[in-house]
């Protein structure tokens, strides 16, 4: 097997494995936001590798650079994060309990009752009562 064909096969296999990883994340993960991240990031990386394999294959076969795969990759890498953002906002609008807890409230729950915690008081004389 020649060098470009070997590399094309390896890249296609790697990309297919990442696509499978993304779909496995869709099925297996527990929360919707986790599923969204798995699907968009892993699948986009896999399709990028497959498009790179195709660009290598057709560049080696025809001679000269094959640029339509680059166009498809740019289109995909620009549009998938936008659609993922729109989906996340729609999901947070429909199910507000999906939102992860704020860092402030999360740290307050781990502090035991009555423990003295040093809090920065930024020139504010009154103690903050909205902790």
């Amino acid at each position, binding site marked *: 097997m020649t060098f470009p064909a070997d590399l094309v096969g390896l890249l296609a296999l790697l990309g*297919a494995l990442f696509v*499978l990883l993304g779909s496995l994340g869709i099925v297996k993960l527990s929360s919707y936001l986790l599923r969204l991240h798995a699907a968009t990031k892993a699948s986009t990386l896999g*399709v990028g590798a497959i498009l790179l394999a195709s660009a290598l294959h057709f560049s080696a076969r025809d001679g000269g650079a094959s640029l339509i795969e680059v166009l498809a990759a740019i289109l995909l890498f620009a549009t*998938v994060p936008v659609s993922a953002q729109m989906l996340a906002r*729609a999901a947070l609008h429909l199910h507000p309990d999906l939102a992860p807890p704020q860092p402030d409230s999360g740290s307050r729950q781990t502090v035991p009752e009555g423990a003295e915690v040093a809090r920065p008081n930024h020139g504010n004389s009154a103690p903050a009562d909205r902790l």
Partner: protein
Amino acid sequence: MIAIAMFITGAAMLLAALRLLLGPTIEDRVLALDTLYVDALALLVLMGIALESRVYFETALVMAVLGFVATVAVAAYLRRGRIMP
């Protein structure tokens, strides 16, 4: 090796279709459909390599644009109740 990659991508599409059928909420189904679009694009590109043909790239480009527009439209509808602002 391209054939193995096509089989793996087909398995990924089956998993996404499983989430499309199972999905408890409507966002899960939309996400599964978006993933199915992307996987079908990958499968088309792999088929173009296997068949030594460049005809399928135009189909892949159109599929990428259609998947993006469909996902954004459904997400905007779910969020605001209408599609156009």
